[in-house]
């Protein structure tokens, strides 16, 4: 039935229209998520600190993100004197675009993926590296000392954390033998013990590998406790200091879009994507994927409100002295295991 309707759609709907629909769908998904993850973040922060969080606008503060969005849209976009105007305006878009592009290859369910690329994983990381440059450009173009400090921090932080992350991804590509995200999910079918997280016969350190990936994901998206780029108690708002109105709004949305992308990728690589956790439970479209992904998103909020911000040398020490050696060990270990067994 589903297959038949898919064939029907494939025959009658021209490819460009399909792509446009997916583009609009992804943009709406990212926009809504960015708005409502702010609500989740604020509500979560409230609960972790044992206060109610937003309550006034709408039931349980549910209309708060919409009110915030209207406020941000109606504010003036101030471009301060002396900034590099074109870079200043370009930077927020450059942060947003890689996240949108990355989501295009994420398989939300068996049949729901905008593009089933054979090099999907590579594409996400290729676009992901633009992120660093965009925040750096934003910080540089702002002509503000805090922004420049933040830009320098972002570069050293993201370079440091991209290495263990890519080492982990290389491990996963070796284990799975493919860069196609749908195939990676497909290989993890049949219960949670088949997920890559628990693929202990390939690599006994797999849960640790997942932890490294998760930590690097937090650092790459500049989330607390690694939010050196924003560091509001030290650098005002870091690279975003001079941004106002929707310029800031886009940065803000991009942060959540990147979290979404990172959590989706972690779900696909380690938690079996849209596969159900128990073999007798049905795979209900994107349901399991969304559940797992939003659990990871919640854990990102959870981590933020549990740990204080690390100091900068602690951050770099963690990457260069612990994460990189450990991820190298897992890489060597899993390649040896693959060769031996």
């Amino acid at each position, binding site marked *: 039935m589903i297959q038949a309707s898919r064939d029907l759609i494939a025959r009658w709907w021209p490819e460009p229209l399909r792509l446009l629909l997916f583009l609009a769908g992804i943009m709406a998904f990212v926009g809504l998520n960015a708005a409502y993850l702010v609500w989740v973040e604020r509500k*979560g922060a*409230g*609960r*972790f*600190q*044992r*206060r*109610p969080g937003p*309550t*006034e606008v709408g039931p349980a503060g549910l209309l708060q993100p919409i009110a915030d969005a209207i406020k941000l849209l109606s504010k003036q976009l101030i471009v301060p004197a002396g900034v590099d105007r074109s870079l200043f305006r370009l930077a927020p878009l450059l942060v947003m675009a890689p996240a949108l592009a990355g989501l295009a290859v994420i398989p939300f369910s068996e049949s729901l993926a905008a593009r089933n690329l054979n090099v999907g994983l590579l594409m996400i990381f290729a676009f992901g590296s633009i992120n660093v440059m965009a925040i750096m450009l934003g910080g540089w173009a702002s002509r503000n000392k805090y922004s420049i400090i933040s830009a320098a921090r972002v570069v050293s932080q993201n370079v440091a954390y991209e290495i263990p992350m890519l080492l982990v991804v290389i491990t996963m590509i070796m284990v799975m033998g493919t860069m196609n995200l749908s195939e990676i999910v497909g290989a993890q079918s049949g219960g949670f013990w088949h997920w890559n997280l628990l693929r202990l016969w390939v690599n006994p350190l797999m849960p640790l590998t997942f*932890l490294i990936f998760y930590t690097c994901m937090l650092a790459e998206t500049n989330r607390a406790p690694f939010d050196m780029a924003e560091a509001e108690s030290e650098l005002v708002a870091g690279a975003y200091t001079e941004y106002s109105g929707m310029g800031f709004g886009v940065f803000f949305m991009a942060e959540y879009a990147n979290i979404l992308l990172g959590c989706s990728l972690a779900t696909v690589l380690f938690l079996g994507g849209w596969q159900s956790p128990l073999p007798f439970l049905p795979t209900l479209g994107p349901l399991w994927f969304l559940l797992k992904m939003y659990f990871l998103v919640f854990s990102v909020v*959870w*981590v933020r*409100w*549990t*740990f204080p911000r690390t100091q900068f040398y602690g951050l770099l020490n963690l990457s260069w*002295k*612990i994460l990189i050696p*450990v991820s190298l060990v897992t890489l060597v270990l899993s390649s040896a295991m693959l060769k031996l067994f």
Partner: protein
Amino acid sequence: MKNILTEVYFGLKSLFIGMRITLGQFFKPTITVHYPYETLKIPPRFRGHIELVRDPSTGKPKCFVCKLCEKACPSDCITVEGVKPEGAKRKTVTNYRLDFTKCSLCGSCVEACRDGAIRFSREYNLASTSKEEFIMDLFQRLEAERNRTGQNETLDTPESSQAKPNAQAPRGLDQTTVSEPKVIPAAGAPKVEAT
């Protein structure tokens, strides 16, 4: 090498312990007072600005304009005026002006009053954009209160002291949406279990 490994192990373990503790807090009830929907119970000796006390039998103020409070006030913020009606033994108050901008709530007036005709009110929701709002006529305030409640007895006796539902809802709040406030005992801060 062994040191590094143990450090990493215990560091990682401590992270998970921290996560467990915060998640435990996540599911516990909130400890904040959701003002203005909830208010704390006001302590019995709370000193709001002074107010006139009514005689429960007549519904009139007890004050008979002896002006002791006026004399006792160190910052000169009380002005009492009254008239003696035909055939009455005592004067009755017609105008009790309190300049709350100068009052330091020292309580000398309450101590000086021979008949217990003034006391501290329990009003704390005081905010205004003009200074004149705080130069108040307590007699008119009392009359207005009687007209509002229709009762001779003042509801707000110190013994049954409870925070009043704030008369003015905060700006932006629809008056009708303000529910009956839940009063929380004011035993300092709510209890937090030591972990």
